[in-house]
C-alpha cells in the first residue's frame, strides 16, 4: 500500500475514480452503504435486483445454511443475503438489575444459550481499483461516470479473466451462457435519476444508496451511535480508501469479523503488483538479454 503515495493507479486511494477513467464532466461517485445492523433478512433486495435486471432463477435447492438458499453471489445472483446463526452472542438474557430494581453488583454476562442471527446483504463492491476491469481484454468491463464498474454483456466474450481477478469472488460466468455477469449498480436506473432496485426495495434502509462521500459520513455516524448504545462490535468494512482495493464503492457496517459473513478480511486488488511485476519482468528480460548477449559475446570470444 506504500505504493499508493507513489501515484500507482492500480492501488491505494484515488480521489477521482471516474475522472481517472476519462470522464471529464461527471457526477459524484455513487455507491452503497449496507448497514447490516438493521437488515431483517427479507431478501427484497435479491428479488428486486432479479426483477429489474432480468437475472434468471438459478436453482431451487435447500441449502441448510439457515434461511440462506442463495448461498453466494454469482453470475445470476447480484445481491445475496447471508444468514448467520450464532450461539452465545445474544443480548443479556436478564437485565443488569437485581430483582428489587437496583443495579446488580455485576451485570450478568450474555447467556451462552442465547442466539444471535446476523443478516447481511452482500453485493459487488465496485472497487476503487477493480481488478476485473483491469484484466478485461475486450473492454466489456468499464468504469462509468458514476464511478461504478459495469460489464457489458454485448461485448463480453466470456474469456473469464475477470473471475479469478476479483478479490471478493463476485463476478462469474453464467453457465449455459458463457458470459460474465455481476451487479451494475443499476447503471440504467442511475442514468434515469433513479436509485438502484435493491435500495429502492429495502424496507429498513439497510441498503442505502447515495454519494459515496456522504455515505461514508453517514456510516461513521452510525458506528459512533452504535458504540454509544453499547454495541462495540459494530465496524465498517470496505469503507477505507487506504485498504487493499482503495476503498469499496459498496461498503458495509458489520457486527462481527468479515469472515463470519463470508467476506475476505483483507482484500487486495489482484492487479496491485501489476506494475511491479512488469518492472520485475522487464528487469528480468533485460537481465536475460544482457546475459544472453554476454554469453554470446563470451562464446564468440571462446571460439576465437
Amino acid at each position: 500500500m506504500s505504493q499508493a503515495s507513489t501515484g500507482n493507479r492500480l492501488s491505494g486511494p484515488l480521489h477521482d475514480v471516474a475522472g481517472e477513467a476519462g470522464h471529464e464532466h461527471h457526477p459524484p461517485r455513487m455507491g452503497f452503504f449496507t448497514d447490516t445492523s438493521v437488515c431483517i433478512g427479507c431478501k427484497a433486495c435479491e428479488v428486486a435486483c432479479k426483477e429489474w435486471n432480468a437475472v434468471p432463477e438459478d436453482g431451487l435447492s435447500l441449502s441448510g445454511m439457515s434461511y440462506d438458499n442463495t448461498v453466494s453471489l454469482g453470475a445470476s445472483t447480484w445481491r445475496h443475503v447471508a444468514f448467520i446463526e450464532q450461539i452465545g452472542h445474544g443480548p443479556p438474557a436478564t437485565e443488569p438489575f437485581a430483582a428489587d430494581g437496583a443495579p446488580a453488583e455485576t451485570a450478568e454476562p450474555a447467556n451462552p444459550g442465547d442466539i444471535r442471527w446476523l443478516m447481511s446483504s452482500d453485493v459487488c463492491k465496485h472497487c476503487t481499483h477493480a481488478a476485473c476491469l483491469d484484466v478485461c481484454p475486450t473492454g466489456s468491463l468499464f468504469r462509468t461516470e458514476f464511478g461504478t464498474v459495469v460489464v457489458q454483456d454485448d461485448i463480453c466474450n466470456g474469456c473469464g479473466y475477470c473471475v479469478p481477478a476479483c478479490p471478493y469472488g463476485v463476478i462469474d460466468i453464467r453457465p449455459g451462457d458463457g458470459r460474465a455477469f455481476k451487479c451494475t449498480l443499476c447503471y440504467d436506473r442511475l442514468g434515469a435519476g433513479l436509485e438502484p432496485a435493491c435500495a429502492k426495495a429495502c424496507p429498513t434502509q439497510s441498503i442505502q444508496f447515495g454519494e459515496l462521500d456522504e455515505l461514508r459520513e453517514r456510516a461513521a455516524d452510525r458506528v459512533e451511535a452504535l458504540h454509544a448504545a453499547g454495541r462495540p462490535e459494530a465496524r465498517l468494512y470496505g469503507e477505507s480508501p487506504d485498504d487493499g482495493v482503495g476503498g469499496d464503492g459498496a461498503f458495509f457496517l458489520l457486527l462481527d469479523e468479515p469472515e463470519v459473513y463470508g467476506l475476505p478480511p483483507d482484500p487486495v486488488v489482484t492487479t496491485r503488483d501489476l506494475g511491479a511485476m512488469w518492472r520485475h519482468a522487464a528487469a528480468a528480460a533485460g537481465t536475460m538479454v544482457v546475459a544472453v548477449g554476454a554469453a554470446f559475446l563470451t562464446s564468440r570470444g571462446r571460439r576465437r
Partner: protein
Amino acid sequence: MAEAHPVGFQWVMEAKKRGATVIHVDPRFTRTSALADVYVSLRAGSDIAFLGGLVNYVLENELDFREYVVAYTNAAAILREDYQGPDDLDGLFSGYDPDGRHYDSTTWQYEGADTPSPGSGEMTETEPAQGAGGDPSASRVGGAAGRAASYGDTHGSGGAAITGKPRRDETLQHPRCVYQVIKRHFARYTPEVVSQVCGVPEDQFLRVAREMTENSGRERTTALCYAVGWTHHSVGAQYIRTAAILQALLGNIGRPGGGILALRGHASIQGSTDIPTLFNLLPGYIPMPHANAHPDLESLVGDEEKQAGFWGNMRSYVVSLLKSWYGDAATADNDFCYGWLPRLTGNHGTYQTVADMADGKVKGYFLVGENPAVGSANAKMQRRGLASLDWLVVRDLVMIESATFWREAPEIETGEMRTEDIATEVFVLPAAAHTEKDGTFTNTQRLLQWHHKAVEPPDDARSDLWFYFHLGRRIREKLAGSTDERDAPLLNLTWDYPTDGPTADPSADAVLREINGTGPDGSALSAYTELKADGSTRSGCWIYCGVYADEANQAARRKPGQEQTWVAPEWGWAWPANRRMLYNRAAADRDGNPWSERKRYVWWDAKAGKWTGEDVPDFIPDRDPHYVPPESATGPDAIAGDDPFVMQTDGKAWLFAPQGVADGPLPTHYEPPESPVANPLYRQQQNPAREVYPRRDNLLHPSGAQPGSEVFPYVFTTYRVTEHHTAGGMSRTLPYLSELQPELFVEISPALADERKLQHLGWATVVTARTAIEARVLVTDRMRPLTVDGRTVHQVGIPWHWGPGGLSRGDAANDLVAVALDPNVHIQDKVGSCDIRPGRRPRGPALLEYVEEYRRRAGITELTGTEGVTP
C-alpha cells in the same frame, strides 16, 4: 412481524432508532427476534398465561394508570353477586351449560343492569347438530347452528348491548367492582405460574413486565403488535381480550404510541371485513339478520336505538344501505326492502360449510383468492369437501391446488379419491392482479389507499369487479321480466355502473362513490353523521361515508408526509371520518386536558367549546368533558363527557366483559385442543366452549394426562416465512420467490434432533391423527426446548405455505391441523400435538395404515378430545 410484514416492520426499526425498546415474544426465534432488544421464547398456545402474568404484575404492584382506569374503563362497575370464575369452578365460569357447551352470560352482568341475554332463547336453533354419527354427547358440537355461535355472530362490531349505566365505586374498593374481581382473577398468574405454564424463565418475564410498565403511563405509551397467528387459537379472541385488558389498565388505548395493532394477514383483509366477505356481517359491521329473531327492520335495529353510543343510529345505517342496494324500490312502506336481505339460520362459517360440503350438503362454491386445499386447517377435509361439490368456481391469478385437487391431491396417491369418481366441475376464471385494476386497499389502520391500474390484465384475466358486475348483469338479463317474487331482490338491485375499455371493466371510482353514499340531491355525502333513517340518504357502507367527500376520491390523496402534520391526514383516507386513531378522546384527561405535553393528541378547547387536536376527535365535537346525560337519553345523546369508548353502550373500555364474549367474561388459560401438557392451573384442560367437529375426517388427540397422549409427545405450531405468501399461489409459482425457500422444511432444536435421531437436511415425517406429512429438517438453535411444569417440551415449527403445485413444492402443513375452533369467530387453533420421526412418509395406501396405527396406539375415536368439561 419482520417475518410476515417486513415492509411494516420498517416503522418498528424507525421507532427503535428513536430509542424504543423492542420486545419479541414467540415460540421460535424469528427475523423479528433478531432485531429485538429482548426476545422471549414461550410455549405455543400459552399466551394468555403470559399476558395474564403481566396483568397480575400491573395489579399486584398497583402500576395501572389509575386516573385513566377509573375514568375510562369499567373498573369501577359493580358486578352481580352470583358471578363465579375459574378459581371457584375448577376452570369454568358461571353460566356454563355442559349439554349445550355454551355460556349463559346472565351472571356476568353489572349489578342491577337490565341486560337482554341473547343466550336466553331469542335465537332458536333451526337445524339439528351435524356432528358425526348422531352421538348424543355431540349435540352442541359439529358447529351446529347453535345459539352460542349465533349470538356472537349477531353483534356486529358494536359488541354486546347493555342498557343503563352500572353502579360504580370509583374508590375501586368494593369487593365486587370489576377492578377487585379482575385482581382476584389474575392473582393466579404469578411469575412462577407464568414460568410453569409458558416455559419462560421468571427473570425474563419480569424484565418484560418492568419494561412495559415503566414505559406506560402519563408520559409514555407502549404498543402491542401482533400478526394474525395470535388469533389462530381456540381461545384466539381471548388472547386479544387479555392484551386489551393489559393496555386499558396501562392507559395505552386511544393515545399516541399505544394501542393493539393487528397486522392483518393479506392486503386489504381489513377491507374485506369492513365490506365483508363474512357470513355474519353486513357492510360496516352491521349484524346479519337472524331468520327467527329479526323478521323486520324494527327487530334488527329497535334494541340498538335504546342504547347509548353511536350504534344507537343503526337504523340510519341500515336504511341507507338498503337504499344504496335497492334504490327507488326501497321505501318506508316496504320496510326499505329489508325482507330481501339474507338471513342467518346458524353458523355458516367456513369450516361448517366445508363439513357440509364433505357431507354432500353444499352443491356449489366460489373460491376467490383463497386456496383452502393448502391454506385452511385440516386441508384434507377441505379437499374432500371440494371433491363433493357439483361445481366450483376458482378466481385466482394462477392455477392453485384448490383447482387441481381432482388430479394432484395427496388422496389420489393414497387411493382415498379417484379422479374418475370426482364429479366436481371446476371453472377456473383468471383474475387480474392489483396492478391490473383500480381499487382500494384498506390496511390495519383502517386507511384506504387507492391503487391505479398500471397495465391491462393479460389474456382472459379480469378484475373481480368485472366478474361480479357482468355475472350480475347476465343473471339479471336472464331473469328480466320475471314476476317470481324470489327474483325481485336481484332485479331491483342498483346495478348500473359505467364501464370502460375493450373489456367493459366497471368503474371502481363509481363503486367507491356509491359506497360513500349520496344525499337527497344526489351529491356525495361527507360524513356518516349525515345519514338519515327516512330513506333520503344512501350509503353502501356507513363507516366509509366521507371517502368521497366533496365529490373527490379521498383515498387517492398522496400528499407527501413532509408536507403535512405528523398525523398525515391527507394521505389516503381512514374510516371513520378520516380519523387516524380510534377512541382518541382518551388521549385527554377527564377535564379534557392532554395527559401530558409529550402525549398530547386530542383535547378540549374550552374557549371555543369544542374538541380539537392533531387528529379528528373521536367524540361529539362540542360535548363538554363534564357533560352528564339525562337518564332517558339514548344513542349519541347518552354519551357522557368522559365516555371515550363511544361505540360501547356504557362508553367505557371493558376490563370485564359482561356480555358478548362466547367463552367467558375474562380470559383464562386453557391448553390448546391438543396438548401433551395437562393444564397446570385446574382440571379444565381446554376451552370448554370451543367448537369441535367429531368426525372421522377430523380426529383429535388425547391431551395431558389422558392415556394415549404420549403417542403425540411434541407441540407443533404453524407459521409463515417472509419468502412466501399464504398458501403459495402468489409465491410458489414465481421462480424468484421459489428459489429463496425452495421446499417445505420443519424447524427443530438440536435436542429434539438428538432425541428422535433427525439429521439436518434429512427427511422427517410429522404425524397427527389427521395424516402424516414429510419435510426436510432444519436443526437450529433458534428452536429451543422449554421446561413446562417440570418437564421438557419440544416444539416443531412448520411453515404452512406449501402444497403439491407450483415450482416450490411440499406437503401441506395444514393437513396436520385439526378443526377445533374459537367459539367467537370460528377460527382454528394452529397449535397441536404431533410425533416426528426420521425418514420420508410412507407412499400410497401405506400412509393410511401408518396413520391408522398411530390412532390405534393412542386409542383415538371420533369423540377423543371433543369433551366440553374435562372429565
